[in-house]
Each structure stands twice: as C-alpha cells, then as structure tokens.
C-alpha cells in the first residue's frame, strides 16, 4: 500500500491511499507518519492523520519539494499494530444510555443481544478527531450501523458511548451530538492537567466491558486496565 502525494499548496499536501480503512492500511499510515516525523522533524510544521490520508504542513516550499524527491524511492513496510487491549468499562443501562431502548426496538434486538454485539468486538483506535480526546474506532458490527439522529442532542454527557452511522465512539466531554447514546463509561478520556491528555494511542485497541449501575457509581479509577496478549 504505497501512497501518492497530492500537493495542495506550496507548503501543504497529503499522502493519499485509495483504499478502504482497514488495520492493514492503518499499519502503513503509522509507518509513514513515524518515518516522516523522525526523518523530517526540522522541515515539518504539522502532520494530521485521517482514515485514508495523512496531511503534512511544511515550514517552507523547499521542505515540501525535498520530501517529494525522497518519497519516490520510499517503500516502507507496515507498522506492526499492538495486540494489547484497553479494557473500557461501560454501563449499558437506559439511565446512562438514553437511546438504548429505542435502538434495540428499531434493530429488533433484545438489550442483551445489542450489548453483546457492541461489547464483543475489539476495536482499533485510528486517530483522534471531532472533540479533544475523541477516538475514531474501527470494528463496529454492521448489525449496529444506524443513521445519525436528525435532531442532535444539545448536551451529551461526558463518557457517553454512542453509535452514529458505521462508527462507535465515546464523548470525552459534554458536547452537542447526533449519535445514539447506548451507555456511559466512568473513565476519564481527556485531561488537560496531564502533559499528554489521553491514555491511548492510534494503533492500539479497546474493548468495552459491561458493568452494572452500582459498579458505575462506585468506580474510582480514571484510567483503564491494559490487557496484554
């Protein structure tokens, strides 16, 4: 999966992959991103990652030309993605997941089936976006794909676990949101009092672990356990 480079301005361009987002593609993206960050650190102003692109902002036009000249011969192997899994507790209870009942009805699934479909898979973290500390995750069962709400909720509570279209995610902070809320996690997902405000990195994995309302209320650890395989 060798990307091509699209020049967008004299100091700005994108590595482009014409593939669907998969773990294999993510491995290549992270390989290129790491390589560029370590070999062009003096020339690079900023790099941003999405599902199929990496955007690169250069300090000056020559930096971009130099990179382009070297990219021609660059064929990197994919980065090996981690097997470790962050265990993220989630209380799937209508008290915390206000759309749980309506979603189970519209999907013709029992609550138990819905929770199982959501908490069984291991999800891969692709990148952060939308809100500070918001993971873009890959791995939602197609049985749970649901169009976003037509009227967004003005204040989704922090920790809310939700489904929108083919994505599932966790709101790190209170925010307006159009996704269907199915539960809530007691963890902290973003903390700007820490030098690094998030505990996970792109390429790592998470799994949702169902907990009861009583466990939710008594939860006192802000960060998840990392299960190594």
């Amino acid at each position: 999966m060798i990307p091509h480079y699209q020049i967008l301005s004299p100091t700005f361009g994108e590595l482009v992959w014409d593939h669907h987002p998969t773990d294999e593609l993510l491995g290549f993206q992270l390989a290129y991103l790491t390589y560029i960050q370590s070999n062009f650190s003096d020339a690079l102003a900023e790099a941003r990652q999405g599902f199929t692109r990496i955007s690169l902002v250069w300090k000056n036009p020559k930096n971009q030309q130099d990179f382009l000249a070297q990219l021609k011969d660059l064929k990197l192997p994919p980065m090996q993605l981690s097997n470790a899994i962050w265990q993220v507790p989630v209380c799937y209870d209508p008290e915390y997941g206000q759309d749980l009942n309506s979603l189970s009805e519209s999907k013709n699934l029992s609550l138990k089936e819905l929770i199982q479909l959501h908490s069984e898979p291991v999800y891969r973290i692709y990148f952060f976006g939308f809100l500070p500390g918001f993971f873009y995750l890959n791995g939602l069962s197609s049985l749970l794909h649901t169009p976003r709400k037509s009227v967004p909720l003005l204040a989704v509570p922090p920790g809310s676990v939700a489904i929108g279209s083919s994505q599932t995610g966790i709101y790190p902070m209170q925010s307006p949101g159009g996704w269907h809320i199915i539960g809530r996690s007691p963890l902290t997902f973003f903390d700007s009092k820490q030098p690094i405000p998030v505990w996970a990195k792109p390429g790592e994995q998470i799994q949702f672990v169902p907990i009861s309302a009583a466990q939710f209320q008594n939860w006192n650890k802000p960060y998840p356990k990392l299960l190594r395989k």
Partner: protein
Amino acid sequence: MSQLLGKAVLLRCPAGTSFQDKGRPAGAQFGIPTSGAMDQKSFRWANHILHNSSNAVALEIAQPGLRIQFDQACLIALAGAQVGVSLNQTSLSNSTLISIAAGDLLEIGAFLTGSRLYLCIQGGFQVERYLGSGSDFESITSPYKRSTQEVLSYIPIPQSNSLGAKPKWETSWFESPEIEAYRGADWALLSSAQQELVRSTTFHLSKFSNRMGIQLEELVPNQLEDLPTNPVFPGTVQLTPSGKLIVLMRDAGVTGGYPRILHLTEEGQSKLAQKRVGNPIRFQLLDTITG
C-alpha cells in the same frame, strides 16, 4: 514572581473576548483544535511593533465596550479592526501604539471597520500555556473565556515612555472581497459546472459565523456523498450535502467527513476573520506551483 507582575482589571468584558496566540498545532494528534488568533496577520503585526516574541499572548476582542485598567506602566499595541479608543476618557487619534501609565483606563468603543481587534502588550499577557499555547479553548484552558472583573497579568515597565516611532495600522488590505484560496483535496470531485459556480459566485457571510467556522449563504448544489473522515485545518472550506459552504476557522475540529473543496491562504483566513455578517466575498483561486 507574581507580585512583580502588573495587573490589568477587565472592568467590562464583552462576550467573545479571549486570550489568543499562534495556536496549538501540537494538539491536533489528540483531537485538540488549533485555536489561536482568527486574524493571524494583525496579531503578528501588533506583536512585531512591540518587539514581542511571535507567540506572545494577546486579547482577541470581537465586540465594542471593553474597559481595562492597568495598575503599572506598560506599552500596548492595537491591530485588526479599526475601533474607537479612549484613554482616561480622552479619545485617541492614533491608537496603534499606546504608552500606558500606572492607573490608566483604556476603553474600546465602536468597531468602525472589521470584526476582531488584537490588544497586544509588551512581553505578552502572562498566562499558563498548554502544548505550547495560551489560546483559550473549552476543556483546555481554565477558565476558557475572559469575564468582567477578571485580573490579567503582564510584565510592567519602569515608567511610561514617550514614543519615538508612531506606526499606524492600516485596514485597507481586508476591505476587498477577494479571498485567496487553493483548490482543496476533494476539489476534483466537483463537476466543472460546480467548480465554475464556486469560482464565479459572490458569496455572503451568514449569521452562522464564529471561531469554529463561517457558513456562507449561497448554495453549491451537489450530490456528493460523505467521505471517510480525514484531516481538516483552519482555512479548509467544506461543502455540505445541503450545498452550504463552511469555511473552517481556528477552533474547528481537526478532522471532518465533508468534501474539502478549497483551502484559504493564511492571508485569506485573516481577511475573512475581519468580514462581517452580510459582507460579500469571492474566492480567487491560486495555482499551487506559482502561488
């Protein structure tokens, strides 16, 4: 250290007043918006004439009525919007560079042209920085907006100076409707008729305009589908399914799923930041090679 700092009391702080600097690009990897001054050109110039570091923190002011009183001498510069300014209730004819004495009261009156004023102070406002930036943003800085009665810290100077140089801030550069832009990453998804519409339409700023983005009134009808979520930046112009164009500004999220049809130059972003609701703009497309 803190007793050595000067204190400036915001006796009246209109909504939309915030600390801003060059922004927080190091935050994008964690999903944190870039933030920073909406009009980087004016911000940079005011810091420059004060011989400040290029990242010294300034106040961005978006409404008339700010009153601020300084307890020690300092030197300040104003750039961006053209506004009425008075010092100790006497209006100033040239308010670009102002020498402040202990106890001076500065008042910002009507905005004559432009939308955003930068109040820079020699040495910069003394604020906590996160990931290299003091720019306000909810969940990053605490508090994340400035309010009446708040006390701001700065580095005082021994006594107010009589000024040698008298620089004068000019605003003609942001008054023309032409906004320079490059073709965006998804420009090629548009038909040639849609591309022509983007080029030739005189768009107007809608009331849905804030630090996250500026929505334009005129439509570019399209049947484009949402794309995989990919990076966006301040200056990215998104085309929504309803045909609305949204120019993303400094507090926009770092990724998006709408087609990215244009990318404004930094000068174009600064110019747009000084436009008002209802103002006309036209996109002037630049060539990537010679631009």
